[in-house]
């Protein structure tokens, strides 16, 4: 048996891909060839280390939001598809509101209960939970997710202001001594990976340089 045939046999052995004649040959080599045994041990160790370093199953962060977001996108697809189907046949009026919901009445009723329970109506009289979000011409919010468990996001539409509002509660207060520095910035172009985006003010001066797009890292300002 040539060295390359031995290697092939070894890899198939470790991967459980041997046929019967190959199994016999491999068993014979394991009994008689210490190098073969050592190589097998080395490859097994390599596999073990890889399984230790790279998980095969890893629950994504915020798994509930993970599913919810997929459901929303599917509902959007279904809604768009239904619209396309309708427009091919008889012209139907554009649905008013309930843009995000497949089952408007059931959801509205259920959301009413939840909205009351959670005290979503403690603001001025024009505000409503998004389950009542109005016509398609208004900004609408799908799902909201806050990584910190103590932070909650409530979304509602204000009729009085004709504006959509997301209220974040539970965020830590920013220390008073901290200065919040703003600027008046104009649109920037994307940068190459590894080079900073230069956000300029309306006079063309660089007010913020920002490095983003590094996998897994937050943006850096400098």
């Amino acid at each position, binding site marked *: 048996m040539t060295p390359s045939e031995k290697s092939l046999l070894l890899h198939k052995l470790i991967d459980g891909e041997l046929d019967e004649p190959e199994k016999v040959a491999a068993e014979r080599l394991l009994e008689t060839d210490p190098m073969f045994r050592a190589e097998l041990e080395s490859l097994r160790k390599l596999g073990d280390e890889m399984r230790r370093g790279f998980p095969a199953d890893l629950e994504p962060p915020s798994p509930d*939001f993970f599913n919810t*977001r997929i459901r*929303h996108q599917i509902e959007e697809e279904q809604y*768009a598809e239904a619209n396309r189907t309708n427009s091919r046949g008889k012209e139907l009026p554009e649905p008013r509101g309930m843009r995000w919901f497949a089952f408007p009445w059931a959801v509205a009723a259920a959301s009413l209960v939840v909205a009351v329970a959670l005290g979503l109506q403690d603001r*001025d009289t*024009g*505000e409503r939970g998004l389950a009542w979000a109005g016509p*398609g*011409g*208004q*900004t*609408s*919010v*799908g*799902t*909201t*997710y*806050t*990584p*910190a468990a103590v932070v909650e*996001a409530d979304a509602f539409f*204000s009729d*009085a*202001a*004709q*504006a*959509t*509002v*997301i*209220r*974040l509660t539970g*965020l*830590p*207060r*920013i220390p008073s001594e*901290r200065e*919040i*520095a*703003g*600027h*008046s*910035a104009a*649109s*920037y*172009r*994307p*940068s190459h990976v590894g080079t900073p*985006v*230069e*956000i300029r*003010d*309306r006079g063309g*001066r660089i*007010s*913020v340089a*920002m490095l*983003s*797009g590094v996998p897994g890292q*937050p*943006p850096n300002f400098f």
Partner: protein
Amino acid sequence: MAPMQRNNYHLPAFFLAAFFLWPFLLCAQGIAARGGPKAETDAEVWGGLVYAIEGGLSEGEKNVAKGPSFPVVSLGAELEKDLRSRLGRVFTGRNFYFLGEHTQGVFKQYESWLVPSKDLFLKLDSKGPVKGGGVNLGLQLWQDKEVIMKTDVILRPDSPLFIEGPAWRRGKLLFVVLLKGE
């Protein structure tokens, strides 16, 4: 004499090369001047960071709302007035001071950042324009190095999004997002 002869021999070649290469050099210069990859956009949005408080700014706070161009907001007087009025209907009894603003094209294929301030800013991921006008966006609200909220939004013309953020000093920081151009 020999070096001079060599120079004379190369001179026409130099001009010949320059003649054929100048269009490429101009192109290269143009690309370099643009300073980044070409990027199509799905929409243009305006983002403003607002300090909402009851009453007026104290003496100590008066430097807060002074940036290079503040308190003038680039939206134009009419739109700014409308925005202040709408803010007032949601956050009643407050005054609104603009701390920063940023108008930004939302790139089709790249992430976009709306950074009126490096203290509180938004990441935008476009999922494309939507029927009837507007744009579908994945939003992440960042405070320093942390994402504090993620959401999916369909941003429509003339329909602002107000995000009520953290408390700061005597009031709250608000992030306002508007779809521009339609």
